[in-house]
């Protein structure tokens, strides 16, 4: 009877596990001796060997554990505390930097608005700031939304839209005359990358589907030119082939935030005290 046997097997296993804690070797050795006295010297030697082994094992394990565990824990706690402190520092410094930048702006405006040359420099500065996405911008524009069909969203293997597709789309928007572009709410500046690493990253910050691209410019002109670009053609094909969602809407007012400040790697002091508007920018990207 197989059922009976299985029951016996499991119950004996459990009984042994729960009730039979002593190594059966002791009982067996005891039975074998059958009352004869234990050889004294052999017992002592065996016992000493066992105790020595046991002691050295415990000692090694203790040293090892002491060397490894608390050190790792302590390091981790220290690092966490360090990260918290640094983060608070960063926030405080960022607030201070923003405040100082505001005061610098005010001072610059006050100093330069006096004469024509100063105003020309200010205009050039404003143009460069817009071009490098250093200031927030507001204006009419296009909102382009692309995404995989909703039923496929979330399954990574079925994602059809790749970083290079979004790159083509962004470049098409620039080519159509967009003055400022944001992807997934992240403003693009000249050195922003749109790339895939696990998920989609814009300027190293993750964005999720559906991807919303916002471009500032005259909506009619933008759309007319955009329809003829590679990016539009590519996504129109995707819509037919894979059911990719692809919508373009004209928006009366878009607000694009400034891109996070890029730290300058090379700064050159201009030769003239005030550079003419056509001079190369004093701060370049590389």
């Amino acid at each position: 009877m197989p059922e009976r046997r299985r029951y016996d097997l499991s119950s004996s296993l459990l009984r042994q596990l729960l009730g039979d804690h002593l190594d059966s070797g002791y009982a067996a050795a005891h039975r074998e001796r059958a009352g004869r006295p234990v050889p004294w010297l052999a017992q002592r030697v065996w016992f000493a060997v066992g105790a020595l082994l046991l002691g050295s094992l415990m000692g090694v394990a203790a040293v090892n554990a002491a060397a490894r565990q608390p050190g790792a824990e302590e390091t981790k706690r220290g690092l966490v505390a360090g990260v918290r402190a640094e983060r608070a520092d960063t926030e405080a410094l960022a607030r201070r930097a923003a405040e100082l930048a505001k005061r610098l702006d005010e001072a610059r405006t006050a100093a330069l608005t006096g004469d024509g040359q100063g105003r020309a420099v200010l205009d050039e500065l404003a143009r460069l700031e817009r071009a490098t996405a250093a200031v927030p911008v507001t204006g009419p524009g296009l909102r382009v939304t692309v995404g995989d069909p909703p039923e496929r969203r979330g399954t990574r293997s079925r994602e059809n839209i790749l970083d290079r597709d979004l790159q083509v789309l962004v470049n098409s928007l620039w080519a159509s005359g967009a003055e400022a572009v944001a992807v997934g709410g992240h403003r693009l500046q000249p050195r922003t990358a749109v790339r895939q690493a696990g998920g989609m990253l814009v300027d190293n910050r993750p964005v999720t589907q559906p991807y919303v691209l916002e471009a500032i410019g005259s909506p009619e002109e933008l759309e007319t030119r955009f329809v003829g670009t590679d990016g539009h053609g590519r996504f129109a094909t995707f819509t037919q082939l894979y059911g990719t969602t692809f919508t373009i809407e004209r928006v009366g007012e878009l607000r694009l935030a400034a891109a996070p400040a890029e730290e300058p790697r090379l700064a050159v002091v201009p030769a003239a005290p005030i550079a003419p508007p056509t001079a190369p920018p004093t701060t370049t990207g590389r």
Partner: protein
Amino acid sequence: MIGVIALAVGVVLGLWLDPTVPDWVQPYLPIAVVAALDAVLGGLRARLDGIFDAKVFVVSFVSNVLIAALIVLLGDELGVGGQLSTAVVVVFGIRIFGNASAIRRHLFKA
């Protein structure tokens, strides 16, 4: 007495020599300690039962440590990770508790 001295000598040796444990041995040390604890409690209980045999103690201790390490190694090689070491710890834990309660009954009659 000789056992206590040998134990102390062993601990001192382990602490004093401070041997650099190779990385591949490190995962087996905690398991070996648990197996050793089981052997110690088993030996103590056998002593109280009056059937202690030093040879059985040493052999069971060494073989338990080795087999426990082997099972953990097998688990690592099979790719089941820590699950087999969990099994080892559970079994030894049950035995340690059982032997400890038997020792308690011997000592306190309760």
